[in-house]
């Protein structure tokens, strides 16, 4: 077990360093000068030179990378060129907002889609199942920006029920104080996630329902409700765990589309704007965080797997 963990950890460190190298190379391949995009096209040559010297952009690439690594290992993610604030401060502001938005919408989506998937699987090919499958399938294939815009057009522009913009308060508490403004971004993400989860849940439950141990459970006289609750639900939850684990790094990409549409100031919007402005420290910091979260997410999924499915635990030893 220890050897396994050490190997996993080694791989994880490799992946994170790989991510850093890769993004570093990629963003330096971007055409045009960073200084020009920050200072504007009319900046004098000396200003550009000062900018480059300040941020070490005049040094050879390998040296820049080394400086960046050195910084990161000292817990410093650098300062945003454009916003002139430490990247870690910006992350500390944005990340909780994404935990709020993505976390709660994921929880809502799970609460709705798990029973829905079980119901659909048990009563499969009935009218309700077909209706739900059709709806979720359409939702699943619909581009997210289109769906979000439709919601805005209906609930904000035509019905005037809800504001078209997410709460602009800086703290999570402040945002929660304006729940009406949270509804549309939440709704967009929850419904699109339900579309994904319920499809998996349905097919996973259908798989589980064909297993022999259910026959045993029924043969020994277990009531149907208990069969579903104890045997089916727990076993069909496994694929969802993997998907949840894989979705943790999604915190970094945030929900770029949703954040852009509703001006929700989370990690996605921060990244999107940084990408347009060639704001390297934010781009590097985001992908680094993304790499770390991916590793954590995969690990968390494996651990959860072990807890839910004892067979995996024994095989791992």
């Amino acid at each position, binding site marked *: 077990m220890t050897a396994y963990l050490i190997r996993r950890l080694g*791989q994880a460190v*490799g*992946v*994170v360093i*790989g*991510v850093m190298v*890769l*993004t570093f190379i*990629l*963003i330096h*391949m*971007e*055409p045009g000068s960073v200084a020009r995009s920050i200072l504007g096209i009319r900046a004098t040559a000396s200003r550009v030179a000062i900018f480059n010297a300040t941020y070490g952009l005049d040094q050879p690439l390998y040296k820049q990378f080394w400086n960046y690594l050195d910084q990161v290992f000292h817990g410093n993610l650098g300062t945003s060129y454009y916003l002139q604030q430490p990247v870690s401060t910006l992350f500390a502001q944005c990340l909780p907002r994404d935990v709020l938005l993505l976390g709660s919408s994921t929880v809502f989506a799970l609460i709705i889609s798990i029973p829905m998937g079980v119901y659909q699987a048990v009563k499969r090919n009935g009218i309700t199942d077909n209706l739900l499958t059709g709806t979720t*399938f*359409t939702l*699943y*294939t*619909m*581009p*997210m*920006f*289109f769906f979000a*815009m439709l919601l805005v*057009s209906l609930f904000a*522009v035509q019905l005037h029920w809800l504001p078209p913009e997410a709460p602009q308060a800086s703290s999570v508490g402040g945002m929660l104080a304006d729940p009406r403004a949270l509804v549309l971004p939440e709704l967009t993400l929850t419904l*699109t*996630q339900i579309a*994904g989860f319920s499809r*998996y849940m349905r097919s996973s439950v259908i*798989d589980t329902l*064909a297993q022999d141990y259910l026959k045993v459970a029924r043969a020994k006289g277990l009531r149907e409700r208990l069969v579903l609750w104890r045997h089916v639900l727990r076993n069909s939850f*496994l*694929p969802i765990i*993997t*998907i949840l684990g*894989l*979705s943790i*790094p*999604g915190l*970094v*990409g945030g*929900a*770029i*589309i949703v954040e*852009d549409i509703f001006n929700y100031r989370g990690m996605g919007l921060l*990244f*999107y704007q940084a*990408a347009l402005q*060639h704001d390297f420290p934010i*781009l590097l910091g*985001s*992908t680094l965080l*993304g*790499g770390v979260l*991916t*590793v954590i997410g995969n690990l968390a999924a494996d651990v959860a797997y072990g807890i839910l499915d004892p067979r995996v635990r024994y095989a791992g030893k």
Partner: protein
Amino acid sequence: MRASNTESLAAEQLAADGGEVHGDVQRWLGIREFLGNGQARTGIAIVVVMFLFCFLGPVFYHTNETAVNLMMKDLPPSSKHLLGTDDYGFDVIGRLMRGGQASFGLGFAVAGITTVVGTLYGAVAGIVGGIIDGFMMRIIDTLLAIPGIVLLLIMVNIFTPTLVTVIFVLSVLSWLGVARLVRGEVLSLRTRDYVLAARTMGSRTGRIMWRHMVPNALGVIIVNATFSIADAITALSTLSFLGLGMAAPYADWGTMLSNGLNDLFDGYWWLIYPPAILLILTIIGFSLIGDAVRDSLDVRLRRR
């Protein structure tokens, strides 16, 4: 951004235990199963109709697609322009046909490239094994550790969006899943008796790969290719929505839709819903085909 089809397919594959081998008989059963499947028929019907509309439509329905005419800008549907005109005064139906050609072209190109590259990469990694395999897979892990849309935004900054660069960028993102799936298949196929038999008879690795492994992994590859067509079309529409798509004279359904959304609050519905419906229907069509292929290959499902 929600997990794309290919990503979630990979996750599913990881979650499921090793694949099943399909012999010739079983493959034949699979095709029969596939064609007898209502989903598959619906999917194929949708895709064929869309295809005919885009590629045969312009033969019968002639429109001006070259000269911008601002006097004819944003006209509502009339007997002359059945679905009205767009911001440049182009007929919307004509644009939809053109746009569909672009969407299909892009989807097929990306799916083709990712399938070939991913299959080769995965097969090589699976067969060679050892340190090289480990290294090749860590490269994939690394690329997968960066959220897709983030990588997309960075890469779009490097390359000016043209059809070729967009195809390249989208391919870079979507070959990863295929490579992983094929490697998994190859690893499980490697130990089968008939592969061992072929090896003892003196077959070279290349021959084993092409005669025994790739045909058996074909099911997974086809399913994935179908999904990546749909993924590519959606991804391009997302890019154009973020303002990073291709410039004006070019049109595909996604670009038309995201441009049309600029006029959402002006009530120009003919610029929004027609491309949206065609786009969504086409993606549904490809997804239905993909699902049906997967179901017909899944021996466990067939028994039921």
